[in-house]
């Protein structure tokens, strides 16, 4: 990875969680479940194009293993919670559930 690729990858990781933290909760508060639908379209659409869809995407992939921008969302929201002062042990179970569930889905996807 060159230095500029490192910078664009960091920027790509920054964009999605920031947009989600700013917009998603507010849209859901205002519009209910329809707000979530709207948020999914107007956040995931453009930011997926920037992060993965362009010919030279912001998140530079290396090797055959695909690193999805979903990780960025999870880590961003997680750090946001930690910074707001919610203690770490309270969500260890959910973290474990996410890793187990993701691995299960990956296993199924690999077999199919």
């Amino acid at each position, binding site marked *: *990875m060159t230095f500029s690729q490192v910078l664009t*990858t*960091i920027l*790509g*990781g*920054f964009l999605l*969680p*920031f947009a*989600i*933290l*700013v917009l998603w909760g507010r849209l859901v508060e205002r519009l209910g479940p329809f707000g*979530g*639908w709207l948020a*999914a379209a*107007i956040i*995931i*659409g453009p*930011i*997926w*194009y920037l992060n993965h869809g362009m010919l030279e995407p912001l*998140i530079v*992939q*290396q*090797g*055959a*293993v*695909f*690193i*999805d*921008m*979903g*990780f*960025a*969302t*999870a*880590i*961003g*929201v*997680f*750090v*946001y919670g*930690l*910074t*707001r002062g919610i203690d770490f042990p*309270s969500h260890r*179970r*959910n973290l474990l*559930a*996410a890793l*187990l*569930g*993701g691995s*299960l*889905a*990956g*296993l*199924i*996807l*690999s077999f*199919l």
Partner: protein
Amino acid sequence: MIQLRGILAYAFSGLMVGLLWPLVAAPFGSFAGLVAGLIIIAPTWYVCHYLGLIPQSKSQVAIDMGAGIGTSLMVRGFLDHGLSQTLMAMPTFLCLALGASLAGWLYARIERGGRK
């Protein structure tokens, strides 16, 4: 039981994206994200977070369904291509994590607001 429900919910989000994205969204090219947002991400979000299939509360840090999606795609890559390819992808992952942490930290600081 609640934990099992959470595991299944994360697996569901990973499967939705992993199975449906190549079928539904990929043919749209540059607009794949928009179509996928409407057809795949929004229903998954509705089931997982809005209906509360993933157990969460105000006192817990939310683990987004993105963790399930990312982990499932990475585990599939690991099983298909082996450990060396996974390690090769790690710099991307670290940079992504750095950017995401920056976003979460910055937004929490902005929300808290002002100089203390």
